[in-house]
């Protein structure tokens, strides 16, 4: 048996611009429409520690070339406006876990990790709220 701890994730700083501007550009051959919208996830409960909610900003780019239409969406910001905050444990989560959770979420999106296996905690509530925000964005 090996004796090792493998450390794979480093914390990424989250300095994310919030993009609210709507821009449209026109050329003779193709038309590009860029729209940024904010999507708020459902409030997810964190066991007995309270609730949290995730908000994402999604930039939707629609490129129309002739009769072809291509739509891409990018998350340009993630924030957590509602934090669990009514017990000592919640304060611990706020100070340590949530900034880290953001980094994990973004990393997972970069296709390095699809899922995380671990004991049940606020990460699930975070994922749940984020997921509902993404689902809203995909339907827009």
């Amino acid at each position: 048996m090996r004796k090792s701890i493998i450390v794979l994730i480093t914390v990424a700083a989250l300095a994310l611009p919030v993009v609210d501007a709507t821009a449209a550009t026109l050329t003779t051959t193709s038309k590009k429409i860029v729209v940024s919208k904010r999507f708020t996830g459902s409030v997810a409960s964190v066991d007995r520690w309270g609730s949290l909610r995730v908000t994402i900003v999604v930039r939707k780019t629609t490129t129309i070339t002739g009769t072809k239409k291509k739509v891409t969406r990018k998350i340009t910001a993630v924030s957590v406006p509602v934090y669990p905050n009514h017990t000592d444990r919640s304060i611990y989560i706020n100070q340590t876990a949530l900034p880290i959770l953001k980094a994990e979420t973004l990393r997972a999106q970069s296709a390095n990790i699809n899922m995380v296996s671990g004991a049940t905690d606020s990460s699930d509530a975070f994922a749940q709220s984020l997921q509902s925000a993404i689902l809203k964005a995909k339907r827009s």
Partner: protein
Amino acid sequence: MTVTIQELPGTRRVEHVMGLPIVVDVRDDDEAGPALDRLFDWLRWVDATFSTFKENSEISRINRGELRRDDAHLDVRRVLDRCDQLRDETRGYFDMRAPDGSIDPAGLVKGWAIDRTAAILDDAGLRNYAVSGGGDMRVLGRPVPELTWRVGIQHPLDRQQVAAVVEATDLAIATSGAYARGDHVWNPHSGLPPSGVLSVTIVGPELGTADAYATAAFAMGPERGPQWTARLAGYEAMTILADETVFKTGGFPDE
């Protein structure tokens, strides 16, 4: 910084059932809506039937003596029988019986239920998906054609890190630990929470079994637990001890 999630293939849905967010992430392009409806309807039935928090569940009725085990729903009998088998397989460390004689099969139900949701997705012809409930999951196929599913095993001491990454195309992955919800696993022989083990991850074909094995190995403690997992047929394990020693079984599929 911009992170792209653009146009993931497939369908995703998250619902809160059995006290847990259940995440279903289907990557096939096929229409998955009706299968997902059936899947979540079925999970709600499982919750109504098995939860000890629901007064009218079959388990609550069995515990009050209003329903004989032999008269329970076929799925209830199957789950309770499997719990009995698992108690034997784990030398009594996985035990649905509380000291007062009541039963709570919740330690098997979640994983078993997710195994059955995988069967629902299979029957719908879906071949690339992940179903996760509270950090335990089944994955099948590929998230995108050129990649395999990659599952990070959370580091129990340092939550911004993962302790391993498992790559799989058909696997159940369960992690049991004391770090998230306090000591929710205890040694049924001593009645005390185990010390010295931070988490146990078990991977294999069935999530119900993997989850029960993880619970048992965690309860066994730092001496017996890793040794016991090394002898499991068809299942591999990674145990993280309090001194940060990691024991992995030989075939543990991390990179």
